Structures are given as structure tokens and as C-alpha cells.
């Protein structure tokens, strides 16, 4: 199903200085957004990245494309380390990767027509000869299911779903091999969500795209992705093939997330005991396992030392529990 490894991330760390700290002798605090994440993505594979808000999933996605600065770690794209990369390496990265953003309105320039937005990417990346650009713009619009006259329109005249299609067309313009989609359907209505998901599924088949799909909606991830990685406070706590994880989650956090999916089944009531509390601030990470303050199965050991990484089949998880008890 999946080809050679396209992207591999090793022990990536991203920290930001917290706003409002570090002045006049106040101790400078750091937001520890990503704490040692390792993952790989093969050509043509879709990896879902899920977690609550503040878990660092968007920061990780942006750091991989070097839209954020990173503190340490390695990002190897196409056998080239782009983490410490020179501008040439970065140029290579940018010409092979693209991002689709959450808010379809905010990520398009309201003063540029759709055609101009798409043409700009083609001009900058110089993958298409200047005289062929108008034809390519129409081809891109067709690919995402928009009629040619949309090239003349501005984002203000488009609906949310149409804007997101333009966002995807812009990402496809450079014929990328990797797309990072950051909550790209979260702002859309369900009936439109389905259309965009189907579009991504079709394009993946046709172009052998690798997709890093960042989402908090687990139902969509199960439908779209081959593998899923669950993030909690900057760490990947569990990772593996989608069906394995959904049928047999091994980390208590993954189990709680899956239990909280609201299903359309009138006979399935709300879970009696939802996961308590909310994620702690990434300014002050809990010691040991970051999940232990909310974990029903926490042991004294959990608060003192980081949990071991365990491997079961293709599944990887970080927990002291050897066998799931939920």
C-alpha cells in the first residue's frame, strides 16, 4: 500500500518563549509545544494526527514545513535533512510540499481573484512555463470541481466549501508529493465536509499524494487515513494502523478519545464517565507521563518516570500498562 519513506521526523522539539515572560528579571517561560516527536510518512500514505487543542499537532505540522522555527531534531524529506537545511534545501522542500489551512476564508487573499491566487504559486515555483499558466489554472479548478468562471471571482463571492476547494487547488498547483492539511474541514458544514473529504480521497488515489491530516474529528480520520498518531501535550502517545487503533486502543488517552466520539445511534447514550479535566498548560508539563493527572489507571510510577515505549504488531504506544484494562 505504501511506498518508500518520504518524510521522517526524528525527536523533533519546538519551544516558544511564552508571551509576557522574561522581562525585568522575571523568569522566562517556554511553551513546550512539541516534545520529541518521531514519525515517518511514506509516499501515497495518509497519516492522521489527532489530539485535543493545545496538544501541539498544528505546531508539528507547521514545523515540518518549516513555517515555524524548531528547537532541535531532524526532519528528513526525500533523503535531505531540512531541519538544519540551507535555503536550497528549503526551496526543494517548498516545491514538493504544500499546506491546506483550517479557515478557508482567512487563508486566501480577499483582494486577489481565484485565478490570480493560483497563478501566483505557479509563477513563484516556476514549474510551469509562463504562457501555460492560464491553462494550468483552469486544469486545477477542474481538478477540484470548480467551473472555469470561478477564476475571475474573489474569495468574498465564494462559499466556505468553494474557498476550501480553492485552498486545495492552490496546494495541488505545484504537484506536491506531501500535503499537510490542518483541520481543513473543521470549519465546514457536514454536507460540504463530505464533499471535501471525497475530493481528498480521489486526489490521493490519482496523484499518489502523501497526506498528513491534522484533525480532532476521529470519525473523519478513520475514514480517510491509513495510520493514525495520537498526540497529547507535544508527544505522540500512540501510533499505528487506523483499524488496529480504533478497535484496540492501548493508551488510556486514545481509548478516552474514541469513547467520546458522538455516534449517530439513538440507543447509545452519552458515556457516563467522560475523561475528566482538561489538558494541563504546556508551560508546566507534568512530570513522568504527561497524561497521569487525568488517567484513571495512573500508578505512583507514572508521575515519576516517563513511560516506556511498547510495540505490539504495527502499533506503538507509551504507557506503563502492558495490556489494556479498559
Amino acid at each position, binding site marked *: 500500500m505504501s511506498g518508500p519513506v518520504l518524510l521522517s521526523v526524528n525527536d523533533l522539539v519546538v519551544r516558544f518563549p511564552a508571551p509576557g515572560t522574561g522581562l525585568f528579571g522575571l523568569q522566562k517561560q517556554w511553551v513546550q509545544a512539541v516534545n520529541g516527536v518521531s514519525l515517518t510518512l511514506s509516499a501515497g500514505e495518509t497519516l492522521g494526527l489527532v489530539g*485535543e*487543542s493545545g496538544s501541539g499537532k498544528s505546531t508539528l505540522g507547521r514545523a515540518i514545513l518549516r513555517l515555524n522555527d524548531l528547537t532541535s531534531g531532524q526532519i528528513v524529506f526525500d533523503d535531505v535533512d531540512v531541519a538544519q537545511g540551507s535555503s536550497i534545501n528549503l526551496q526543494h522542500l517548498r516545491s514538493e510540499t504544500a499546506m491546506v489551512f483550517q479557515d478557508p476564508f482567512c487563508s486566501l487573499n480577499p483582494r486577489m481573484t481565484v485565478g490570480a491566487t493560483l497563478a501566483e504559486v505557479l509563477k513563484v515555483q516556476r514549474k510551469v512555463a509562463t504562457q501555460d499558466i492560464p491553462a494550468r489554472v483552469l486544469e486545477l479548478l477542474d481538478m477540484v470541481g470548480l467551473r472555469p468562471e470561478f477564476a475571475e471571482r474573489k474569495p468574498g463571492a465564494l*462559499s*466556505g*466549501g468553494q474557498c476550501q476547494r480553492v485552498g486545495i487547488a492552490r496546494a495541488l498547483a505545484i504537484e506536491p508529493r506531501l500535503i499537510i492539511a490542518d483541520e481543513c474541514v473543521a470549519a465546514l*458544514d*457536514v*454536507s*460540504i*465536509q*463530505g*464533499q471535501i*473529504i*471525497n475530493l481528498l*480521497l*480521489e486526489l490521493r488515489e490519482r496523484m499518489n499524494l502523501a497526506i498528513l491530516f491534522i484533525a*480532532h*474529528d*476521529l*470519525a*473523519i480520520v*478513520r*475514514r480517510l487515513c491509513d495510520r493514525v498518531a495520537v498526540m497529547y501535550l507535544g508527544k505522540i502517545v500512540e501510533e499505528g494502523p487506523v*483499524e488496529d487503533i*480504533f478497535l484496540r486502543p492501548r493508551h488510556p488517552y486514545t481509548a*478516552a*478519545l*474514541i469513547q*467520546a*466520539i*458522538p*455516534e*449517530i*445511534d*439513538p440507543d*447509545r*447514550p*452519552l*458515556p*457516563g464517565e*467522560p*475523561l*475528566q479535566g*482538561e489538558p494541563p498548560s504546556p508551560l508546566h508539563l507534568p512530570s513522568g507521563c504527561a497524561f497521569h493527572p487525568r488517567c484513571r489507571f495512573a500508578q505512583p510510577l507514572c508521575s515519576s518516570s516517563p513511560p516506556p515505549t511498547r510495540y505490539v504488531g504495527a502499533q506503538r504506544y507509551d504507557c506503563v500498562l502492558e495490556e489494556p484494562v479498559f
Partner: protein
Amino acid sequence: MSAPVLKVSEMSVIANNRGHEVTLVDRLSFELRQGEILGLVGESGSGKTMACRALMRLMPSPDLKVQGGSVLLDDVDLLKLDSNAMRAMRGRRIGMIFQNPSSHLDPLMRIGEQIGEGFRLHQGASKREARALSIDLLRQVGIPDPASRVDNYPHEFSGGMRQRAMIAVALGCGPQVLIADEPTTALDVTVQAQILRLLLDLRDRHGLSLIMITHDLGVVAQTCDSIAVMYAGRLCEHGSKRDVLAHAQHPYTRGLIDCQPASSAGKSLLRTIPGQPPLLNALPNGCRFQSRCTHAGQGCAEVLPVMKSIGTAHAVACHHPLSVIQSVAS
């Protein structure tokens, strides 16, 4: 079944857009019984939020007005009250919580003052009494350590705690009806489950009636007793949760259910509803869903369908409703 607490009949909301009148909500009618949770479902722009703001008479713009019909809350017609009388109802008899708690809490006021404001205004409570009542309410909505949290500002609360605080503000004076406008859309799934559990507990404890506006049918399935589906400003299906989810009669309701990426397995393409909702200033004659409908037939293009009862508590506005057998088979 108990008598209806809230009875909305034939209520319309009209927007005046530079001389052009656009109907955002078209002759909406429904009833809400004591202790009932009604899920009001629809896509953005279907008028569900506007309808509920009209019930509260909280119109976001002076160009919007409620036209015709009546909103009876225990035999008092809210639409006939003057603004002072309506202010006395808001908070005390009918309350509302919003999608984004950050933008509906005053950032410069302590949480306790915001909750206590209602007690001081409606019940003439002293500062000290209001504070004690606020602490009690914060405890009821599950804020840990309420005695010290009462003096916090909204920015010191997390998203889920802000939503709990807003619920506390709305519950303050013990309203009979609470309108929750997408109360969990901005929250994570785990926190969403906590807030929904809280709303269910409050219903059980205080006999509250709830209108839950949402676009997430999963949330509806877990919490609501009955469901009303809106499309382009009109009600298209209304019934008990089981009738609507398991035996949807309107092709739009069926489409909404089918296009949810249900968490069951399967890698096939999702079913979708092709096209988009019509613009409210360019509505077609006849049924508003016709251009996206797979079952459109005779009469759909000419005659606007009205709600017809098809069961004890199930009504649908469609010329060619899906038969029960067919919807079970699919």
C-alpha cells in the same frame, strides 16, 4: 407527556437589506415540553441561530425583525412584551448560552460578578448574597474550588471552564427554558462529553427544558429527546429522536445522516449532498431543497411543501417523503 412550556407558532424573521426584505426564518412552529431536550439541526445559514435569537429577542442587528406569529412561554406572548418586560423575562424565565464563551463573557468582570449580576438585577440580592449564590452555582456546574475561582477573570479559565461559567450565568435565576447555541462546537471531544453530561444532569435536577442548536447529529443522538431539522429558513422535519434518526422521511434529513463520517469502518467515499443551500434572497418557488434532492418529482418545483403529520409525533414537509421501508433498507 406534560404540557408545552414554550410554544412557537408561525414566527418569521425578516432582514431588511437596503430596502430588500429577505426572510431568514419562515413561519417556524414548534413546541417544547417541560424537561424535553429539542435538537435544532441544520447547516449554517439555515436560520436555526436566528430563530432562537428571535425567541430571546436578542437580534444582532436593528435591520432584523420578528414578524407575525407568537411565542408563548407559559401563556405569555414574548413577542408582545415591551423591551423592559422582555428584559425581566430574559435570564429569569428563558436563558441562552453561546458557542464561543470567550466572546460572551465580559473580559473585564470577575466571573462571580457576571453570575451575580442576574441575582442582583432580578432578585435584588445584596453583593454578599450574590457572591454566595455564585459560588454555589459554580459548584453545581462542576468548577473545582469555586470559592477562590469566583474571583477569577474569564482569561484565567480554560475553554471548558468558560463554557461552564456561561452555563452558570444562564442558570442563575432558574430559567425554565435554556437555549444552547452550539454549546460544544468550540470544545474538544473529551470536554464536549463533559459539558453534554452537565447539561443532561441539570435537566434531570432542575426539570429544565433545553433547545440545543447544533449541526452535529452525533451530539443530538446522545442528548436530545426530539429533533427539528431546518433547511433554508424552514422546518423540514420534526419528531422524536428515534423517528427522525432511524426513519428519516425528508430526503434532506436522510442526506445529513448519510454524510456524517460515521465512526464505523470503511474506506469508501462518503455520501454527500451535492450542491449547496440556496441563497435566501434568491429562493426557488416550491420546495427549497429541490435542486439538491434526489427524490424531487411532481409538484416540488411549484408548491412549497408544508408540515404534515405522519405519525404520533413525527411531521415532515415534503411532497414525496421517503417511505419507512425504504429508509430502513438503506
